[in-house]
C-alpha cells in the first residue's frame, strides 16, 4: 500500500536506528526471559498486517504539528541514545518514530489500528527500574511460600530459607533462588497477542492478564511441590537437569492452552472485525503539508545512524564491551591464589559453619577461609559474571535478612565496596563486603550509586559488561569492634588488590 512517503525516506529513517537496535537485540538475547522477542516481533508484524486491511481508505494523515512533535522527540532521544550509547533509548526512539510515521500516514484511525502491534513491541522492551525482575522475583517468592504450604498438606518435611527449599539432606531450587520466573514475560506477551488477535474488549484483558500470571504462579507451585514430594518420598529428582528443562517446555505449553481456554469462556461480540476499507483508492490524503521537511528529517536520522554505526563499531572492538560481553576475555582455566597470611589473618582449612555459607554466582568461584583471633572470614572471587549483578539478591533469596546496605569509599585509593549487615536463623549475624570489577580493571560499584537513579532506570550506559566480584563474609558472634573492622578492611583490600591484578594478567591480550 502506498504510504505517500517515498520508500527511500523510510529506509533512511530506519537506518538511523539500525545500529542501536542491533545492539539492543544482541543485549536482549543474553537475557533468557526475553529470548521470546523474535516471536513477539513476528506477532507484532502479524497484528499490524491484520489490522492494516481495516484502515478506512483513503487514509487521512494526522495533524502535522503532532507528526513534527513525535519526530522531534524521537530525534532528541536518538541523539541522547547515541551520546550515552543507550540501546534501550534507541528502541524507544524508534518506536516513537514509528508512531510519527503512522500518524503522518493515517492519523488517529491508523494509529488506533496499529495500537496492538505497538503494545506487542513494548513487551520486549525491559521496563525501567528493573520492574520486570522485581515482578519475577516477587512471583518466585510467592511460589516458594505457596509450595511450602502445599508441602505441609502433602506431609513433606521441609524448611524454607529465602527461595530455597531444604529437604532432609538436600536443597532444592538453589540455582533459581535469586532469579525470577522466566516464563512470566513470555506468557504475558502471548496473552496480549492472543487477545488482540481475537479482538477482545478491555475488560477481557483485565481478567485474562492477571489470570495468566496466576496460572504461571500456580504452575510453578505444582512443579516445585510435585518435585519435592517425589524427591522426599521416592528419591526421584525432577527439579534439575533435562527433566527440569522438559517441565519448563510442558508447563509453558499448558499456560498457553489455559490462556486460549480462558479466552473462550467469554462470549464473542456479535459484530466481527471492521468491514473492509471502502473503495475509492488507497492513497493517503496527508497532503496538508509538504513531505519535503519529513524527508529532510529522515536524512538527519540517517546521519545519526552513520554516527551510531561508527560508535557501535568502536564499542564492538572495545575490550570488555557489552556487545561481546558474554565471551569473557578471561583465559580459560584462569587461576587465582591468595597468600597464607594477610596481615594477622591466617589461611584456614576449616570453613565457616554450613548454615552461613558465602553465596557465589559466577561461572567459576574461588573461596578462601581466613581466621584471626576471635574472627573468621571467607573471601570469594566470582568470575566471570555476564552483567553487573547485585549479590544482595542472592543472599536475600537464600534466607538472609539484609538490615543495612551502603557503599563505602575508602580514602586510601582502595576500591569502593558495598557493606551489608545481615542476619539469618538461627541467630546468625554477618557482615558482607563486596566490590565488582569489570574486565577493563574499573571498580564499578561506585558508579551504580553515583548515578543511582539513572542507573536503576537502566536507560543510560551499558549494564551488559562482564564483571568479576570479590566478596568478604565476616561471621560475627558480637558486633565488630574498630580493631576488627580495620583488620577486615585490610584483608578485603589486600585480597581485592591481589585478585584484580591476577585477573588483569590473565585476560587475553
Amino acid at each position: 500500500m502506498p504510504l505517500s512517503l517515498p520508500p527511500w525516506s523510510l529506509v533512511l529513517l530506519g537506518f538511523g536506528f539500525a545500529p542501536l537496535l542491533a545492539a539492543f537485540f544482541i543485549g536482549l538475547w543474553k537475557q533468557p526471559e526475553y529470548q521470546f522477542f523474535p516471536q513477539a516481533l513476528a506477532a507484532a508484524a502479524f497484528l499490524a498486517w491484520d489490522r492494516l486491511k481495516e484502515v478506512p481508505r483513503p487514509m487521512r494523515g494526522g495533524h502535522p504539528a503532532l507528526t513534527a512533535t513525535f519526530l522531534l522527540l524521537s530525534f532528541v532521544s536518538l541523539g541522547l541514545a547515541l551520546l550515552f550509547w543507550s540501546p534501550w533509548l534507541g528502541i524507544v526512539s524508534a518506536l516513537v518514530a514509528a508512531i510519527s510515521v503512522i500518524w503522518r500516514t493515517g492519523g488517529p484511525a491508523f494509529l488506533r489500528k496499529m495500537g496492538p502491534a505497538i503494545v506487542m513491541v513494548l513487551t520486549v522492551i525491559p521496563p525501567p527500574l528493573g520492574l520486570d525482575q522485581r515482578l519475577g522475583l516477587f512471583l518466585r517468592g510467592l511460589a516458594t511460600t505457596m509450595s511450602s504450604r502445599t508441602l505441609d498438606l502433602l506431609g513433606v518435611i521441609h524448611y524454607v530459607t529465602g527461595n530455597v527449599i531444604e529437604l532432609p539432606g538436600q536443597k532444592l531450587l538453589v540455582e533459581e533462588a535469586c532469579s525470577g520466573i522466566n516464563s512470566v514475560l513470555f506468557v504475558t506477551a502471548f496473552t496480549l497477542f492472543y487477545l488482540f488477535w481475537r479482538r477482545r474488549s478491555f475488560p477481557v484483558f483485565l481478567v485474562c492478564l492477571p489470570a495468566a500470571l496466576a496460572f504461571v504462579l500456580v504452575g510453578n507451585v505444582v512443579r516445585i511441590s510435585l518435585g519435592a514430594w517425589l524427591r522426599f518420598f521416592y528419591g526421584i529428582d525432577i527439579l534439575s537437569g533435562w527433566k527440569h528443562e522438559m517441565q519448563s517446555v510442558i508447563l509453558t505449553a499448558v499456560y498457553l492452552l489455559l490462556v486460549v481456554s480462558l479466552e473462550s469462556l467469554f462470549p464473542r461480540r456479535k459484530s466481527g472485525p471492521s468491514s473492509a476499507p471502502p473503495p475509492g483508492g488507497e492513497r493517503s490524503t496527508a497532503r496538508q503539508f509538504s513531505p519535503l521537511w519529513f524527508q529532510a528529517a529522515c536524512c538527519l536520522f540517517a546521519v545519526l545512524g552513520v554516527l551510531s554505526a561508527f560508535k557501535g563499531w568502536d564499542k564492538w572492538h572495545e575490550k570488555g564491551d557489552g556487545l561481546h560481553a558474554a565471551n569473557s576475555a578471561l583465559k580459560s582455566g584462569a587461576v587465582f591464589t591468595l597468600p597464607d597470611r594477610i596481615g594477622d589473618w591466617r589461611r584456614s582449612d576449616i570453613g565457616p559453619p554450613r548454615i552461613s555459607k558465602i553465596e557465589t554466582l559466577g561461572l567459576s568461584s574461588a573461596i578462601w577461609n581466613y581466621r584471626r583471633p576471635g574472627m573468621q572470614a571467607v573471601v570469594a572471587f566470582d568470575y566471570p559474571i555476564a552483567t553487573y549483578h547485585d549479590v544482595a539478591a542472592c543472599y536475600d533469596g537464600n534466607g538472609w535478612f539484609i538490615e543495612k546496605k551502603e557503599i563505602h569509599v575508602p580514602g586510601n585509593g582502595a576500591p569502593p565496596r558495598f557493606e551489608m549487615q545481615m542476619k539469618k536463623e538461627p541467630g546468625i549475624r554477618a557482615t558482607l563486603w563486596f566490590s565488582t570489577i569489570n574486565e577493563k580493571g574499573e571498580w564499578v560499584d561506585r558508579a551504580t550509586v553515583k548515578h543511582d537513579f539513572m542507573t536503576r532506570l537502566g536507560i543510560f550506559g551499558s549494564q551488559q559488561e562482564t564483571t568479576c566480584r570479590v566478596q568478604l563474609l565476616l561471621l560475627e558472634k558480637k558486633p565488630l569492634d574498630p580493631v576488627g573492622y580495620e583488620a577486615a578492611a585490610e584483608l578485603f583490600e589486600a585480597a581485592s588488590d591481589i585478585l584484580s591484578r591476577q585477573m588483569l594478567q590473565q585476560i587475553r591480550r
Partner: protein
Amino acid sequence: MKPEPNPSAAAGPKRTAPGFWLKIPAVLAIAFCVVLGLSIWRPDSAALGMRYLEVARKALDQKDYPAAIVASSRLLSFGDPFRNEALFKLALAHQGLGQTADASNVLAMVAPSDKPVYAPAHLFVARTLIARGSRSREVEDLIVAQLRNVLALEPDSAEAKELLSRYQR
C-alpha cells in the same frame, strides 16, 4: 443427478461443539486454583509446630540427623513457643552429624554460661563437659555455671542438684 439429502443423517447423533471442550481446561484450572488457595490459606501454625516438634524428636531418636536439622529449622520459623527447643534440637542434630562448629554456635544461644535460657540445653552442656574427663579450673567453673542455670529454670531438677553438689566448693 444430485443425491437426495438424508434427513436421518442430518438429524444424526448430537455432537458437542468444539468450543465446549476448549472451555474445560480453564474451568478445571480455575477450580484447582480456588481449591489450592483455600487449602493453603492461613495454615494452623500451632498444629504444624507441634507436628514438626514431634518429627524432630523422632528423627533425633532414630539418629536421622538430616531430617532433625530440617524439622528443627522449620520449627524455628514458628517463633517463640518452640524457639528454645528447636535451637536445642538443631544443635543436637548438628552434633550428631559431626558439625561441631554449627552445634556450638547454636548451643551458645540456648545455653550461655552467663544467663539461664533453656534448662535441657544447660544440662546437656554440663553433662558434655563432665564427660570430657580431665578438667581445668575454668571448665569446672563453667560446669557449675551451667548447672546453676539449670536450677534457676528448674529448681527441682534432681540431676542438676546432684551434679552441682559434686562440683560446688
